[in-house]
């Protein structure tokens, strides 16, 4: 019996899976099952796995079993070599013990045995799991936007003033969500519209709440910068939203996605700050509290009048410095002709 067992050793070894991965997201593009080694990979048709990659040699790679039973991949002397994971230098031979990814030419391979353990199943959410919360958030966004419009309504109330912005907001949300769904569908096969919708809804609600608080807080605390800098927070929210969308599209390459989101945020803030400062210097618009609130919302105690004028004196030094500096560029068009 013992001898027989030794002779049938290959049968007892677990099956070997060779997976060809997509180049971009390393999803499995093709998967081959083998029970025996050696397995050869190359462009020639006498290989076990044939890849149509011009950068792959006719006989590029061979997978064999080492003395201790481990699988070993060896380069068969190809021009472009064998690269393991993200290594920068080719290896002639590698032991496949930790689910390495092998790059030959432009093709990425992964070798796993039947013994490979898979993670536990994720629970399947039936129906429309994201929709109720997403809709709740959107209702919140609309309610806040409507409230804001209503509270700043000083003329005859007209329904159209509410409908137009709300309609624009709706269209923007739909278009935005759809674009991300289409992208996700392209890369993963599932649109995941509900999840994308939820991301937008949460992001918008968060920003709506923040901007209202900032507006009221700027008045309450007499801190103008709070209201005037809410665009910075808006871009941060947008960065967060974009990052979340990217994660839904694909969970891989998180650091890259963080960087993309950060670049977006930084570029956005820089652009808007520049625009604001240029506008201010062109039209001489000072940064002031743009909206007063009912007196009851004031939290800080008022300054003594004499202290206010002492602070006003401090403005003088800035002006005296500014007057000696040359004005940059010209004013708004036709400015010099003002009479």
């Amino acid at each position, binding site marked *: 019996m013992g001898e027989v067992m030794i002779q049938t050793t290959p049968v007892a070894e677990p099956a070997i899976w060779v997976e060809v991965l997509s180049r971009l997201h390393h999803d499995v593009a093709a998967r081959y099952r083998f029970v025996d080694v050696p397995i050869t990979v190359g462009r020639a048709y006498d290989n076990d796995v044939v890849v149509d990659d011009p950068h792959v040699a006719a006989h590029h790679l061979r997978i064999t079993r080492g003395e201790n039973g481990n699988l070993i991949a060896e380069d068969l002397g190809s021009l472009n070599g064998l690269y393991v994971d993200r290594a920068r230098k080719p290896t002639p031979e590698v032991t496949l013990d930790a689910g390495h990814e092998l790059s030959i030419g432009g093709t990425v391979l992964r070798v796993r045995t039947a013994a490979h353990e898979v993670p536990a199943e994720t629970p399947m959410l039936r129906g429309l799991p994201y929709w109720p919360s997403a809709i709740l958030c959107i209702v919140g966004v609309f309610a806040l936007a409507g409230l804001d419009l209503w509270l700043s309504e000083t003329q005859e109330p007209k329904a159209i003033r509410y409908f137009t912005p709300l309609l624009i907001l709706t269209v923007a949300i739909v278009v935005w969500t759809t674009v991300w769904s289409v992208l996700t569908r392209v890369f993963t096969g599932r649109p995941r519209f509900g999840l994308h919708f939820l991301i937008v809804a949460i992001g918008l609600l968060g920003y709506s709440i923040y901007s209202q608080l900032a507006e009221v807080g700027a008045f309450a605390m*007499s801190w103008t910068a709070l209201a005037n800098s809410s665009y910075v927070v808006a871009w941060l929210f947008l960065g967060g939203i974009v990052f979340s969308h990217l994660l839904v599209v694909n969970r891989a390459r998180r650091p890259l996605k963080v960087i993309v989101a950060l670049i977006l945020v930084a570029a956005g803030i820089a652009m808007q700050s520049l625009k604001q400062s240029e506008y201010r210097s062109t039209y001489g618009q000072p940064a002031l509290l743009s909206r007063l609130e009912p007196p009851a919302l*004031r939290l800080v105690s008022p300054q*003594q009048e004499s202290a206010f004028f002492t*602070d006003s004196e401090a403005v003088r030094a800035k002006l005296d410095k500014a007057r000696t500096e040359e004005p940059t560029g010209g004013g708004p068009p036709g400015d*010099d002709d003002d009479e």
Partner: protein
Amino acid sequence: MRAGAFARSAGRAVAQIFCPLAFGTLVATVIASAQTTTAQSTAAQTPPAQTPPAQGATAQSGSPAPPAAQPIQAPVPPEPPLMPPTPNVSAAAESIYATARPGLLQIRTLVEAAGRQSSIGSGFLVSPDGLAVTNYHVVSQYALEPKTYRLEYARPDGSQGALKLLAIDVANDVAIVQLDGTELPHLEFDPAALEDKSPRGERLYAMGNPLDLGFTIVEGTYNGFVEKSYNPRVHFTGAINPGMSGGPAVTAAGKVAGINVAKRLDGELVSFLVPASKASALFERAKTEPPLDLAHVRDEIDRQLITWQGAFYHALGEQGFKDTTLGPYQAPESAAPWFNCWARTNADETPRPRALLDSTSCNSQSSLYIAEDIETGRAELWHAYVRSTDLNPFQFAAFVSTYYGGAGSIRPWSRKRLTQPECHEDFIQRNESDKGGPVMRAVWCARAYRDFAGIYDVAITTVTQDRDKEALVSRLAMKGVSYDNAVALAQRFVRELAWAK
């Protein structure tokens, strides 16, 4: 409301001031400039025989104009007099013109590089050695940019030459210039006018070169000093036109009673003269003092502005404030006589406003012309009592915000002349020592003049913060003020804002 300065380049001034006439006058200007050149070329042969321009420019050109030009120009047909003309009046004007004419000047500001005139005005000789009086605004371009412009005169006999700028007085809009020559014909000041004692109703004759058409004489009436003007101005009822600035207004005896300076655009024949006493004072100064240093004209203007605003704000302080009651509040208004006040309400607007706003605005009549894009010297007090009829407290606060936010934009932004505004805002309360008064939101905004050290445009706006649906919005704006004077007046202003007793 707007007093037009008169030395602007003809085309521009015409477009601005005389909109309905723009086309016809523009044609006239073109013809007139052609006429001027012919006048110059013939001038050398027959200097004294220059006929004074009478009516249409085509009529003056001397050369037979093509008949087609007639309808465009539409010269005024001589009207049959209703009454036989009083022979001595017209004779007086004739003889006055004949006597004064040799002393008149047209003063041109030329662009140095192009050698063409960019603006024109008038002037008159006051001494045999070539000293002449004109308006500061006639020579302001040259005074501020002596490298870009130069000054030239043209006399009625056709002679021309360079002018030297000797002295300026920006507050009274007078300048003294000098041309080379000796034993020149000149005008003298009217002794009564020098003592500011001219009789109201006295007939005056304003002379100058309107719209570059040629030297003219205009009959009008002396109507005393303008009551609400801080800078003394004579009210002259007569037609002064662009280009006549700096020309003399003389009495029947041919003595100078004033200098043409401005007119109101919203009235008819409402014109202003600089009192002869101011011109005479500068003339006396120019005779003894060293001439203006052209490299430092801005410093001189700066000095004059500092002195002027010192006197103005001192006088304003002396006059004090009187309180007006607006709803539950008490607001200060200047007791000085040189403020022009207007009230406005939105109560009669349609659709019915959801918050009622009653405002009063008081402007000091103390504007100073420094350059085309620098007009300074004014103070403005503005109060608005606002109450909600239909707005909730948030909406009411939003309504009031539109008046609060406007505090920064003191004037259209010209960064060539002014720095960016710098502001300071906070909630304020009157010092504990003086009891009572509402908490207010206040914003202080100031800009500095780039050309003049120590001169600022300042505005302070306050909004009361003691009621949900009622507020007093107040603003004090000061142009061309020193920082200390601005702070002092603003502080006084804020202390006067209180609850009505």
